[in-house]
């Protein structure tokens, strides 16, 4: 009976406030780009590493924000953009959609010689790749008083107002070289939607939960028969 009671509580809590993680491999802890697509307009790309340096040009980074791995952009000849993209689909209903991530931007000089450019950016795209909104950035100058390499900036914001239900979108990180090489690091990407039922549907969910509880209660007895 104790087991059944706790199951009932779990079901109630689950149905009362449902949270869905829409991002796969957001912390890159698979050690790969699984779930993500990396593209580039030049000779560089985003890649996943656990090392505190970039893979092509060996520039220092602060490493992973948490866990072992993170994704970082790097290229040889500059003047290009690397993209790191993941497609996700929103659930049928949600009240909030909290996007969070950790991101750093380094350039080789610790400054950008006054040139303009997007540097590091985070964008929300539609399923056709069309821009819906720039969520964060551009970041292109970094005189971090702590010195290079720069630390992660943590981002967390509810973007539910930008999202429709049952719709496919793309979340895209980009790294665009300005006058020198830019390295953008990304880690701990998360997009969590929550659905808090209205009072009317809450009672419906409660009833459903009790129904499940009753079925769960019956099943063992059937096995005993």
């Amino acid at each position, binding site marked *: 009976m104790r087991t059944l009671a706790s199951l009932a509580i779990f079901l109630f809590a689950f149905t009362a406030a449902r949270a869905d993680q829409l991002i796969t491999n957001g912390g890159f802890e698979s050690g790969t780009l699984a779930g993500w697509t990396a593209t580039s307009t030049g000779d560089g790309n985003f890649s996943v590493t656990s090392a505190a340096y970039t893979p092509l040009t060996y520039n220092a980074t602060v490493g992973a924000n948490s866990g072992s791995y993170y994704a970082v952009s790097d290229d040889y000849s500059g003047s290009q953009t690397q993209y790191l993209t993941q497609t996700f689909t929103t659930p049928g209903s949600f009240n909030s959609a909290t996007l969070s991530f950790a991101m750093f931007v380094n350039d*080789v000089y610790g400054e950008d010689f006054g040139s303009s450019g997007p540097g590091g950016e985070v964008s929300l795209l539609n399923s056709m790749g069309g821009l819906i909104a720039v969520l964060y950035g551009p970041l292109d100058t970094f005189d971090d008083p702590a010195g290079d390499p720069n630390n992660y900036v943590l981002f967390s914001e509810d973007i539910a107002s930008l999202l429709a239900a049952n719709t496919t979108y793309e979340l895209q990180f980009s790294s665009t*070289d300005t006058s020198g090489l830019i390295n953008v690091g990304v880690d701990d990407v998360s997009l969590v939607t929550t659905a808090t039922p209205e009072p009317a549907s809450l009672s419906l969910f409660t009833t459903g939960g009790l129904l499940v509880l009753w079925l769960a209660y019956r099943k063992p007895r059937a096995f005993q028969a």
Partner: protein
Amino acid sequence: MIPKIIKSYLLLVAAVLSCSLAYGQATSVPVVPPDSIGPDQSRPFSWVVVPADGSSSLNLVNAPGQGTCNSSNPCYYTEANIWTAYGLPPLQARGKYGQGMTIGIVDAYYDAQTAANLQAFSTAWGLPMGTSGSSINCTTTPTLTIVSQTGGSPSGVAFNANWALEINMDVQQAHSMAPCANILLVATNNNSNANLYTGVKYAYAHADIVTNSWGGGEGASELSADANFSPSTVPLLFSAGDTGAITEYPCTSPYVTCVGGTTLLTTASSFRTSEYVWNDGSANGATGGGCSSAEGKPSYATGFTESICGSARGVPDVGALADEFTGVTIYLGANVEGTANLYCCIGGTSLASPLIAGILTNVNGARVAGGKAKLGSGLNSLLYQAASYSPTGVSSQPAPYGSSYRSFYFDVYTGNSGFPATTYWDRTTGLGVPAFSAIGNYFITNVP
């Protein structure tokens, strides 16, 4: 008229070398040492003995990055520190650590301890020519070959303690930058122009790249001396000199790549935080460079140097670490310092030249592995061409610079040598310090 001086550009945190080079009809040529600077009789600091057992206690390097390296607190980089600071590991791996290539080094005089010193240095830092094993696995064990200026036995060539510093630093640093490459050291009879030029000619006929850390004052006769270098089919590198805003020959020759000097600072994990013009004052040296009084602007420098040097050849072409107070270690035998030891520290533009020669040897390794020819005598053209490169064909930089300029070069714009550093080309470090893995990829991938 500035007297012609030939010196080797070595600044020891304890020794300055002197040698003389007189070219052409030059009158007398006071011979100064090679372009190395370390503690020597004329430097106000002394050697620090470094434990040569590869132990972790070697690390005096708390200072780089802390800004406290000076004559009373000299600091050095381990060889792995240099690799990291210059981003070499990816390039070294692509270039098979220079396997199959030969680095030529030309120095005056002969130190019979050179091979033993190289072995001890390599043992301390875990390089393939050491006896302690190495994490770098060469397909074929690299060799050090020492010959006289005509390719014979060097055993009859005289010893000179100042040049011994240059010889040992050149050999040890070249091995570290391209750990699987063979080294050909040409020991010339003395430091006269004629003998050194003879040595250079032997070296470029038998090596894939040649580094030289010596030079002297300019003179009209240098134009005819260029005939010693123009036939080379391999890159020739020279150090720019250690006496500040002064040009030296052969660095001003359009047929050689002239290498200026920097001070390098890093994080505790030895990634570069800043790099600026090497200038420790008149007592301890500063990078050479300027506008040649005799040589005209070569076509490859068109657009890059005229605003400063007009129709004259401007030097240096590139820069690299030279500051002896953020320098490197050197293993010297008892014949030089009384006790055989690994010592801290040595530098000078004498250091910068073998560093770049060694690093480019990895580029050669990768080019050959990819079925391409080794870098040739057109290295300078490639260096300036790289600074003009734009991947999209449209530059975001003022002409003649390309969009990739600051990806391929760390543009040194801080400090002065007597001449100020500026953004873009200047008389302290030329185009800047190559970003070796990036420009290396350009040389490997983009250059036919």
